Protein backbone atom coordinates (compact mmCIF):
# COMPACT_ATOMS: atom_id res chain seq x y z
CA UNK A 1 0.00 0.00 0.00
CA UNK A 2 1.45 3.34 -0.95
CA UNK A 3 0.77 6.51 1.01
CA UNK A 4 0.75 10.26 0.59
CA UNK A 5 2.59 13.04 2.35
CA UNK A 6 1.46 16.62 2.78
CA UNK A 7 3.77 19.04 1.05
CA UNK A 8 3.25 22.54 2.52
CA UNK A 9 3.16 23.93 -1.04
CA UNK A 10 1.55 21.22 -3.18
CA UNK A 11 -0.66 19.44 -0.67
CA UNK A 12 -1.05 15.66 -0.49
CA UNK A 13 1.18 13.89 -3.00
CA UNK A 14 2.37 10.31 -3.58
CA UNK A 15 5.33 9.35 -1.37
CA UNK A 16 7.47 8.39 -4.36
CA UNK A 17 7.62 12.07 -5.36
CA UNK A 18 9.57 12.73 -2.16
CA UNK A 19 13.05 12.01 -0.81
CA UNK A 20 13.32 10.90 2.79
CA UNK A 21 15.50 13.21 4.87
CA UNK A 22 15.66 11.30 8.15
CA UNK A 23 14.63 12.12 11.68
CA UNK A 24 14.54 15.69 12.95
CA UNK A 25 17.36 15.74 15.52
CA UNK A 26 17.97 19.38 16.22
CA UNK A 27 21.02 21.33 15.11
CA UNK A 28 24.22 19.54 14.16
CA UNK A 29 26.59 19.52 17.18
CA UNK A 30 29.41 22.05 17.10
CA UNK A 31 32.44 20.47 15.42
CA UNK A 32 35.01 22.01 17.80
CA UNK A 33 33.94 20.32 21.01
CA UNK A 34 33.00 17.09 19.29
CA UNK A 35 35.06 13.95 19.97
CA UNK A 36 35.49 11.58 17.03
CA UNK A 37 33.37 8.97 18.79
CA UNK A 38 30.53 11.42 19.45
CA UNK A 39 30.69 12.54 15.86
CA UNK A 40 30.45 8.99 14.55
CA UNK A 41 27.61 8.31 16.96
CA UNK A 42 25.72 11.40 15.88
CA UNK A 43 26.13 10.52 12.22
CA UNK A 44 25.12 6.88 12.37
CA UNK A 45 23.32 5.84 15.53
CA UNK A 46 19.55 6.21 15.79
CA UNK A 47 16.82 5.46 18.25
CA UNK A 48 13.83 4.35 16.21
CA UNK A 49 10.98 3.23 18.47
CA UNK A 50 7.80 2.11 16.77
CA UNK A 51 6.01 5.42 17.39
CA UNK A 52 5.43 8.68 15.51
CA UNK A 53 8.55 10.74 14.84
CA UNK A 54 9.24 14.11 13.32
CA UNK A 55 11.01 13.82 9.97
CA UNK A 56 12.46 15.83 7.13
CA UNK A 57 11.24 15.27 3.58
CA UNK A 58 12.17 16.87 0.28
CA UNK A 59 9.64 17.28 -2.52
CA UNK A 60 12.18 16.23 -5.15
CA UNK A 61 9.77 15.58 -8.00
CA UNK A 62 7.57 18.53 -7.14
CA UNK A 63 8.18 22.03 -5.90
CA UNK A 64 11.60 21.32 -4.37
CA UNK A 65 10.78 22.39 -0.82
CA UNK A 66 12.25 20.79 2.33
CA UNK A 67 9.69 20.41 5.13
CA UNK A 68 9.03 18.60 8.39
CA UNK A 69 6.16 16.27 9.10
CA UNK A 70 5.24 13.73 11.78
CA UNK A 71 4.90 10.16 10.55
CA UNK A 72 4.44 6.81 12.26
CA UNK A 73 6.99 4.18 11.12
CA UNK A 74 4.55 1.55 12.38
CA UNK A 75 1.97 2.48 9.73
CA UNK A 76 3.98 4.66 7.34
CA UNK A 77 1.26 7.31 7.65
CA UNK A 78 1.44 10.94 8.68
CA UNK A 79 -0.14 11.74 12.01
CA UNK A 80 -1.22 15.02 13.53
CA UNK A 81 1.75 16.61 15.29
CA UNK A 82 1.27 17.33 19.01
CA UNK A 83 -0.15 20.83 19.04
CA UNK A 84 1.68 23.55 17.11
CA UNK A 85 2.72 21.94 13.87
CA UNK A 86 5.77 24.20 13.55
CA UNK A 87 7.52 22.73 16.55
Amino acid at each position, binding site marked *: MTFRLTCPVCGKRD*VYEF*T*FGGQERGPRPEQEELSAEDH*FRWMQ*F*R*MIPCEPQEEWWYHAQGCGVWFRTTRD*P*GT*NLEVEGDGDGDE
Partner: protein
Amino acid sequence: MTVKPSFNWLRLRRLWRPAPVRRHYDVVIIGGGIHGLATAYYLARAHGIRDVAVLESHYIGFGGSGRNTAIVRANQRTPENVRLYDEGLKLWRTLTDELDFNLMFFNCGTLMLGHSEAAVDGYRMLASTHNLLGVKSEVLDPLQCAELIPGLDISDRPAFPIQAGLYHPPGGVVRHDAVVWGLAKGAAAHGVHIHQGCEVQGIDTDGSRVTGVRTSLGTIRCNRLGIMAGGYSTAVAAMVGIELPIHPLTIQAMVTHPLKPFLHHVFSSGAYHVYANQTLKGEIATGAHMDPQVNYTNDATAYYLKHQAEALVDLMPVLRGVRFMRIWAGLADMTPDMAPIMEGHLRYDDLYLDAGWGYFGFKSGPVAGKYMADYMATGERPEILEAFQLKRFLEGRYSGETAAVMKYGHWD
Protein backbone atom coordinates in the same frame (compact mmCIF):
# COMPACT_ATOMS: atom_id res chain seq x y z
CA MET B 1 -13.74 -41.29 21.17
CA THR B 2 -11.39 -40.34 18.36
CA VAL B 3 -11.95 -41.49 14.84
CA LYS B 4 -9.05 -43.48 13.51
CA PRO B 5 -7.95 -42.13 10.14
CA SER B 6 -8.21 -44.77 7.48
CA PHE B 7 -4.97 -43.77 5.80
CA ASN B 8 -2.19 -43.41 8.30
CA TRP B 9 0.13 -41.83 5.78
CA LEU B 10 -2.28 -38.93 5.47
CA ARG B 11 -1.96 -38.07 9.12
CA LEU B 12 -0.07 -34.85 9.53
CA ARG B 13 2.61 -35.07 12.16
CA ARG B 14 3.41 -31.93 14.06
CA LEU B 15 6.99 -30.77 13.69
CA TRP B 16 6.97 -29.31 17.18
CA ARG B 17 4.47 -28.63 19.92
CA PRO B 18 3.81 -25.45 21.86
CA ALA B 19 4.80 -25.61 25.53
CA PRO B 20 3.40 -23.72 28.52
CA VAL B 21 5.20 -20.44 29.21
CA ARG B 22 7.63 -20.71 32.11
CA ARG B 23 8.23 -17.60 34.21
CA HIS B 24 11.99 -18.01 34.04
CA TYR B 25 14.43 -19.26 31.40
CA ASP B 26 18.18 -19.35 31.36
CA VAL B 27 18.18 -17.84 27.86
CA VAL B 28 15.45 -15.77 26.21
CA ILE B 29 15.69 -14.89 22.53
CA ILE B 30 13.53 -12.16 21.02
CA GLY B 31 12.53 -13.04 17.44
CA GLY B 32 11.37 -16.28 15.85
CA GLY B 33 13.22 -15.83 12.58
CA ILE B 34 16.06 -17.91 11.26
CA HIS B 35 18.64 -16.15 13.43
CA GLY B 36 16.74 -16.58 16.69
CA LEU B 37 15.72 -20.16 15.96
CA ALA B 38 19.21 -21.16 14.81
CA THR B 39 20.79 -19.64 17.92
CA ALA B 40 18.33 -21.52 20.13
CA TYR B 41 18.93 -24.73 18.19
CA TYR B 42 22.71 -24.54 18.55
CA LEU B 43 22.51 -23.50 22.22
CA ALA B 44 20.57 -26.68 22.90
CA ARG B 45 22.32 -29.06 20.53
CA ALA B 46 25.92 -27.90 20.72
CA HIS B 47 26.06 -26.60 24.29
CA GLY B 48 23.38 -28.60 26.10
CA ILE B 49 21.68 -25.35 27.16
CA ARG B 50 18.05 -26.38 26.88
CA ASP B 51 16.36 -23.93 29.20
CA VAL B 52 15.78 -21.58 26.28
CA ALA B 53 12.72 -19.71 25.00
CA VAL B 54 12.26 -18.06 21.61
CA LEU B 55 9.65 -15.30 21.86
CA GLU B 56 7.90 -14.41 18.62
CA SER B 57 5.30 -11.65 18.45
CA HIS B 58 3.49 -13.09 15.40
CA TYR B 59 4.35 -16.55 14.07
CA ILE B 60 7.75 -18.06 13.31
CA GLY B 61 8.94 -16.82 9.94
CA PHE B 62 6.69 -13.74 10.04
CA GLY B 63 9.70 -11.47 9.48
CA GLY B 64 12.31 -11.45 6.75
CA SER B 65 12.87 -15.18 7.23
CA GLY B 66 9.56 -16.01 5.55
CA ARG B 67 9.65 -13.16 3.03
CA ASN B 68 13.08 -13.26 1.44
CA THR B 69 13.93 -14.41 -2.06
CA ALA B 70 15.96 -17.26 -0.60
CA ILE B 71 19.20 -16.62 -2.49
CA VAL B 72 22.31 -18.08 -0.89
CA ARG B 73 25.90 -17.31 -1.87
CA ALA B 74 29.30 -16.52 -0.40
CA ASN B 75 30.61 -13.91 -2.84
CA GLN B 76 30.89 -11.04 -0.38
CA ARG B 77 33.65 -8.46 -0.63
CA THR B 78 35.87 -8.57 2.43
CA PRO B 79 37.72 -11.71 3.62
CA GLU B 80 36.00 -11.59 7.05
CA ASN B 81 32.59 -11.66 5.41
CA VAL B 82 33.48 -14.20 2.73
CA ARG B 83 34.75 -16.57 5.41
CA LEU B 84 31.53 -16.39 7.42
CA TYR B 85 29.20 -16.68 4.42
CA ASP B 86 31.26 -19.51 2.95
CA GLU B 87 30.85 -21.54 6.11
CA GLY B 88 27.16 -20.64 6.06
CA LEU B 89 26.81 -21.89 2.51
CA LYS B 90 28.38 -25.23 3.40
CA LEU B 91 26.02 -25.60 6.34
CA TRP B 92 22.87 -26.20 4.25
CA ARG B 93 23.87 -29.75 3.37
CA THR B 94 24.88 -30.64 6.94
CA LEU B 95 21.72 -29.11 8.34
CA THR B 96 19.44 -30.97 5.98
CA ASP B 97 20.83 -34.22 7.43
CA GLU B 98 21.06 -33.01 10.98
CA LEU B 99 17.49 -31.67 11.10
CA ASP B 100 16.19 -34.61 9.06
CA PHE B 101 14.23 -32.08 7.05
CA ASN B 102 14.58 -31.28 3.37
CA LEU B 103 15.72 -27.66 3.09
CA MET B 104 15.57 -27.96 -0.71
CA PHE B 105 18.99 -26.48 -1.42
CA PHE B 106 19.05 -25.92 -5.19
CA ASN B 107 22.74 -25.41 -6.01
CA CYS B 108 22.15 -23.59 -9.29
CA GLY B 109 24.89 -20.95 -9.05
CA THR B 110 24.49 -17.18 -9.19
CA LEU B 111 25.45 -14.67 -11.87
CA MET B 112 25.92 -10.99 -11.01
CA LEU B 113 25.78 -8.75 -14.07
CA GLY B 114 28.05 -5.75 -14.50
CA HIS B 115 27.07 -2.84 -16.73
CA SER B 116 30.03 -0.47 -16.42
CA GLU B 117 33.80 -0.53 -16.49
CA ALA B 118 33.85 0.13 -12.76
CA ALA B 119 31.55 -2.84 -12.12
CA VAL B 120 33.71 -5.15 -14.23
CA ASP B 121 36.85 -4.03 -12.36
CA GLY B 122 34.98 -4.63 -9.11
CA TYR B 123 34.08 -8.16 -10.20
CA ARG B 124 37.71 -8.94 -11.06
CA MET B 125 38.63 -7.80 -7.59
CA LEU B 126 35.85 -9.93 -6.07
CA ALA B 127 36.85 -13.02 -8.04
CA SER B 128 40.45 -12.68 -6.87
CA THR B 129 39.36 -12.28 -3.26
CA HIS B 130 37.11 -15.33 -3.53
CA ASN B 131 39.73 -17.47 -5.21
CA LEU B 132 42.28 -16.48 -2.61
CA LEU B 133 39.92 -17.82 0.03
CA GLY B 134 39.08 -20.98 -1.89
CA VAL B 135 35.60 -19.81 -2.91
CA LYS B 136 34.69 -20.47 -6.53
CA SER B 137 33.98 -17.33 -8.60
CA GLU B 138 34.89 -16.35 -12.13
CA VAL B 139 34.42 -13.35 -14.41
CA LEU B 140 32.49 -14.16 -17.61
CA ASP B 141 32.24 -12.12 -20.79
CA PRO B 142 28.77 -11.28 -22.18
CA LEU B 143 28.72 -14.25 -24.54
CA GLN B 144 29.46 -16.64 -21.69
CA CYS B 145 26.72 -14.96 -19.65
CA ALA B 146 24.23 -15.61 -22.46
CA GLU B 147 25.37 -19.23 -22.72
CA LEU B 148 24.58 -19.64 -19.05
CA ILE B 149 21.32 -17.68 -19.21
CA PRO B 150 20.00 -17.74 -22.79
CA GLY B 151 17.24 -15.13 -22.27
CA LEU B 152 19.64 -12.29 -21.44
CA ASP B 153 19.91 -9.52 -24.02
CA ILE B 154 23.67 -9.00 -24.44
CA SER B 155 23.29 -6.55 -27.34
CA ASP B 156 23.76 -2.78 -27.09
CA ARG B 157 20.00 -2.25 -27.00
CA PRO B 158 19.28 -2.30 -23.22
CA ALA B 159 19.57 0.96 -21.29
CA PHE B 160 22.51 -0.60 -19.42
CA PRO B 161 24.21 -3.10 -21.74
CA ILE B 162 25.80 -6.14 -20.07
CA GLN B 163 29.58 -5.89 -19.98
CA ALA B 164 30.50 -8.88 -17.81
CA GLY B 165 29.21 -11.25 -15.17
CA LEU B 166 30.53 -12.69 -11.94
CA TYR B 167 29.61 -16.36 -11.88
CA HIS B 168 29.56 -18.04 -8.48
CA PRO B 169 28.78 -21.77 -8.86
CA PRO B 170 28.45 -22.64 -5.12
CA GLY B 171 25.44 -20.33 -4.71
CA GLY B 172 21.78 -21.09 -5.26
CA VAL B 173 18.39 -21.06 -3.60
CA VAL B 174 17.10 -22.67 -0.40
CA ARG B 175 13.43 -23.01 0.56
CA HIS B 176 13.08 -20.38 3.29
CA ASP B 177 9.98 -21.79 5.02
CA ALA B 178 11.69 -25.15 5.27
CA VAL B 179 14.61 -23.56 7.09
CA VAL B 180 12.27 -21.90 9.59
CA TRP B 181 10.29 -25.10 10.15
CA GLY B 182 13.34 -27.35 10.22
CA LEU B 183 15.12 -25.20 12.80
CA ALA B 184 11.96 -24.96 14.93
CA LYS B 185 11.60 -28.73 14.76
CA GLY B 186 15.25 -29.25 15.70
CA ALA B 187 15.22 -26.68 18.50
CA ALA B 188 11.98 -28.02 20.03
CA ALA B 189 13.27 -31.60 19.84
CA HIS B 190 16.17 -30.46 22.04
CA GLY B 191 13.81 -28.91 24.58
CA VAL B 192 13.66 -25.27 23.42
CA HIS B 193 10.31 -23.50 24.00
CA ILE B 194 8.93 -21.51 21.07
CA HIS B 195 6.22 -19.04 22.06
CA GLN B 196 4.31 -17.53 19.16
CA GLY B 197 2.00 -14.57 19.69
CA CYS B 198 4.34 -13.42 22.44
CA GLU B 199 5.28 -9.81 21.89
CA VAL B 200 8.10 -8.31 23.91
CA GLN B 201 6.97 -4.87 25.10
CA GLY B 202 9.71 -3.98 27.53
CA ILE B 203 13.07 -5.12 28.84
CA ASP B 204 13.82 -5.14 32.58
CA THR B 205 17.26 -4.37 33.90
CA ASP B 206 18.87 -4.13 37.31
CA GLY B 207 22.17 -2.27 37.43
CA SER B 208 24.46 -3.90 34.91
CA ARG B 209 22.20 -6.90 34.35
CA VAL B 210 19.24 -7.72 32.15
CA THR B 211 16.67 -9.47 34.30
CA GLY B 212 13.85 -10.28 31.91
CA VAL B 213 11.26 -9.12 29.45
CA ARG B 214 7.71 -7.84 29.71
CA THR B 215 5.55 -9.52 27.11
CA SER B 216 1.96 -9.82 25.96
CA LEU B 217 2.01 -13.17 27.83
CA GLY B 218 3.33 -11.68 31.07
CA THR B 219 6.77 -11.09 32.52
CA ILE B 220 9.44 -13.66 31.74
CA ARG B 221 12.72 -13.52 33.63
CA CYS B 222 16.02 -14.72 32.22
CA ASN B 223 19.77 -14.84 32.83
CA ARG B 224 20.77 -14.02 29.26
CA LEU B 225 18.86 -12.16 26.58
CA GLY B 226 19.37 -12.13 22.82
CA ILE B 227 17.86 -9.49 20.52
CA MET B 228 17.45 -11.19 17.15
CA ALA B 229 14.43 -9.35 15.89
CA GLY B 230 15.61 -8.68 12.32
CA GLY B 231 14.22 -5.41 10.99
CA TYR B 232 12.52 -4.78 14.34
CA SER B 233 15.78 -4.88 16.29
CA THR B 234 16.02 -1.08 16.43
CA ALA B 235 12.54 -0.90 17.98
CA VAL B 236 13.43 -3.61 20.53
CA ALA B 237 16.80 -2.00 21.37
CA ALA B 238 14.99 1.31 21.87
CA MET B 239 13.08 -0.40 24.72
CA VAL B 240 16.34 -0.33 26.74
CA GLY B 241 17.44 3.02 25.36
CA ILE B 242 20.05 1.59 23.02
CA GLU B 243 20.69 3.42 19.74
CA LEU B 244 21.95 1.41 16.79
CA PRO B 245 23.50 2.28 13.42
CA ILE B 246 20.62 0.51 11.69
CA HIS B 247 17.84 1.73 9.44
CA PRO B 248 14.84 -0.59 9.00
CA LEU B 249 13.68 -0.28 5.39
CA THR B 250 11.16 -2.32 3.43
CA ILE B 251 12.29 -4.36 0.47
CA GLN B 252 9.77 -5.75 -1.98
CA ALA B 253 9.63 -8.99 -3.93
CA MET B 254 7.20 -10.58 -6.37
CA VAL B 255 6.55 -13.68 -8.47
CA THR B 256 5.17 -14.15 -11.97
CA HIS B 257 2.82 -16.90 -13.03
CA PRO B 258 4.58 -20.24 -13.56
CA LEU B 259 6.52 -20.81 -16.78
CA LYS B 260 8.26 -23.84 -18.24
CA PRO B 261 11.74 -24.15 -16.75
CA PHE B 262 14.10 -21.95 -18.77
CA LEU B 263 16.11 -20.00 -16.20
CA HIS B 264 18.57 -22.31 -14.49
CA HIS B 265 20.60 -19.83 -12.43
CA VAL B 266 20.06 -16.87 -10.16
CA PHE B 267 20.95 -13.61 -11.84
CA SER B 268 21.20 -10.11 -10.43
CA SER B 269 21.98 -6.64 -11.58
CA GLY B 270 22.84 -3.75 -9.32
CA ALA B 271 22.30 -1.17 -12.05
CA TYR B 272 18.74 -2.36 -12.68
CA HIS B 273 18.04 -3.10 -8.99
CA VAL B 274 16.87 -6.55 -10.00
CA TYR B 275 17.61 -10.10 -8.98
CA ALA B 276 15.66 -13.08 -10.24
CA ASN B 277 15.48 -16.82 -10.34
CA GLN B 278 12.96 -19.41 -11.43
CA THR B 279 11.42 -21.34 -8.56
CA LEU B 280 10.90 -25.08 -8.68
CA LYS B 281 7.21 -24.29 -9.31
CA GLY B 282 8.21 -22.31 -12.42
CA GLU B 283 7.52 -18.78 -11.19
CA ILE B 284 10.09 -16.06 -11.75
CA ALA B 285 10.80 -14.79 -8.24
CA THR B 286 12.31 -11.35 -8.32
CA GLY B 287 13.32 -8.71 -5.86
CA ALA B 288 13.68 -5.01 -6.09
CA HIS B 289 15.14 -1.92 -4.58
CA MET B 290 14.31 -0.73 -1.08
CA ASP B 291 11.80 1.86 -0.04
CA PRO B 292 13.63 4.94 1.26
CA GLN B 293 11.84 5.75 4.53
CA VAL B 294 12.43 3.97 7.84
CA ASN B 295 9.39 1.91 8.74
CA TYR B 296 8.19 -1.26 10.45
CA THR B 297 5.46 -2.20 7.96
CA ASN B 298 5.28 -4.93 5.35
CA ASP B 299 3.65 -2.65 2.78
CA ALA B 300 4.13 -3.49 -0.89
CA THR B 301 3.41 -0.93 -3.63
CA ALA B 302 2.43 -0.92 -7.31
CA TYR B 303 5.36 1.42 -7.91
CA TYR B 304 7.79 -1.49 -7.66
CA LEU B 305 5.68 -3.78 -9.84
CA LYS B 306 6.13 -1.28 -12.62
CA HIS B 307 9.82 -0.75 -11.91
CA GLN B 308 10.44 -4.47 -11.79
CA ALA B 309 8.54 -5.20 -14.99
CA GLU B 310 10.45 -2.52 -16.89
CA ALA B 311 13.82 -3.61 -15.56
CA LEU B 312 13.29 -7.34 -16.11
CA VAL B 313 11.99 -6.93 -19.64
CA ASP B 314 14.89 -4.66 -20.57
CA LEU B 315 17.41 -7.26 -19.37
CA MET B 316 15.46 -10.28 -20.56
CA PRO B 317 13.03 -9.37 -23.37
CA VAL B 318 11.54 -12.90 -23.49
CA LEU B 319 9.67 -12.00 -20.30
CA ARG B 320 7.52 -9.40 -22.05
CA GLY B 321 3.84 -10.15 -21.44
CA VAL B 322 4.44 -12.42 -18.46
CA ARG B 323 2.22 -11.39 -15.57
CA PHE B 324 3.01 -10.91 -11.89
CA MET B 325 0.86 -13.01 -9.57
CA ARG B 326 1.89 -11.80 -6.15
CA ILE B 327 3.88 -9.04 -4.50
CA TRP B 328 4.96 -8.74 -0.88
CA ALA B 329 7.43 -6.87 1.29
CA GLY B 330 9.58 -7.41 4.33
CA LEU B 331 12.10 -5.49 6.37
CA ALA B 332 15.82 -5.17 5.86
CA ASP B 333 17.91 -3.86 8.77
CA MET B 334 20.55 -1.81 6.97
CA THR B 335 23.92 -0.83 8.49
CA PRO B 336 26.30 1.83 7.09
CA ASP B 337 28.75 -0.83 5.82
CA MET B 338 26.31 -3.54 4.74
CA ALA B 339 27.82 -5.92 7.30
CA PRO B 340 26.02 -7.26 10.38
CA ILE B 341 26.43 -6.51 14.07
CA MET B 342 27.00 -9.51 16.33
CA GLU B 343 27.68 -8.25 19.81
CA GLY B 344 27.71 -9.47 23.38
CA HIS B 345 27.67 -7.61 26.71
CA LEU B 346 25.90 -4.79 24.92
CA ARG B 347 25.69 -2.14 27.64
CA TYR B 348 24.40 -4.89 30.00
CA ASP B 349 26.42 -7.99 30.99
CA ASP B 350 24.09 -10.53 29.51
CA LEU B 351 22.56 -8.70 26.57
CA TYR B 352 23.41 -10.00 23.10
CA LEU B 353 22.53 -8.63 19.69
CA ASP B 354 22.51 -10.25 16.26
CA ALA B 355 21.12 -7.80 13.69
CA GLY B 356 21.91 -5.50 10.82
CA TRP B 357 21.85 -8.26 8.23
CA GLY B 358 20.12 -6.13 5.63
CA TYR B 359 19.24 -8.31 2.69
CA PHE B 360 21.99 -10.85 3.47
CA GLY B 361 20.44 -12.43 6.54
CA PHE B 362 18.86 -15.51 5.06
CA LYS B 363 22.01 -17.11 3.68
CA SER B 364 23.83 -16.39 6.92
CA GLY B 365 21.10 -17.41 9.38
CA PRO B 366 22.33 -20.83 10.49
CA VAL B 367 26.01 -19.89 10.67
CA ALA B 368 25.24 -16.71 12.61
CA GLY B 369 23.11 -18.78 14.99
CA LYS B 370 25.93 -21.24 15.47
CA TYR B 371 28.41 -18.55 16.52
CA MET B 372 25.90 -16.50 18.52
CA ALA B 373 25.17 -19.70 20.47
CA ASP B 374 28.92 -20.08 21.17
CA TYR B 375 29.04 -16.44 22.27
CA MET B 376 25.99 -16.68 24.53
CA ALA B 377 27.06 -20.02 26.01
CA THR B 378 30.59 -18.96 26.93
CA GLY B 379 30.32 -15.19 27.20
CA GLU B 380 33.39 -15.00 24.98
CA ARG B 381 33.39 -13.70 21.45
CA PRO B 382 34.32 -16.37 18.90
CA GLU B 383 37.29 -15.29 16.80
CA ILE B 384 35.28 -15.30 13.55
CA LEU B 385 32.96 -12.61 14.97
CA GLU B 386 35.79 -10.12 15.70
CA ALA B 387 35.01 -8.16 12.55
CA PHE B 388 31.33 -7.68 13.39
CA GLN B 389 31.54 -5.68 16.60
CA LEU B 390 29.35 -2.65 17.12
CA LYS B 391 32.30 -0.50 18.16
CA ARG B 392 33.70 -0.43 14.62
CA PHE B 393 31.15 2.27 13.86
CA LEU B 394 32.48 4.41 16.71
CA GLU B 395 36.07 3.98 15.60
CA GLY B 396 35.51 5.02 12.01
CA ARG B 397 36.33 1.51 10.83
CA TYR B 398 33.95 -0.14 8.40
CA SER B 399 33.74 -3.68 7.26
CA GLY B 400 34.07 -2.49 3.68
CA GLU B 401 31.28 -4.53 2.12
CA THR B 402 30.67 -1.35 0.17
CA ALA B 403 33.45 0.91 -1.01
CA ALA B 404 31.92 3.85 0.83
CA VAL B 405 29.63 4.31 3.80
CA MET B 406 26.08 3.63 2.65
CA LYS B 407 23.50 6.35 2.54
CA TYR B 408 19.89 5.45 2.12
CA GLY B 409 18.67 8.98 1.79
CA HIS B 410 19.76 12.57 1.86
CA TRP B 411 20.22 12.80 5.58
CA ASP B 412 23.58 13.32 7.36
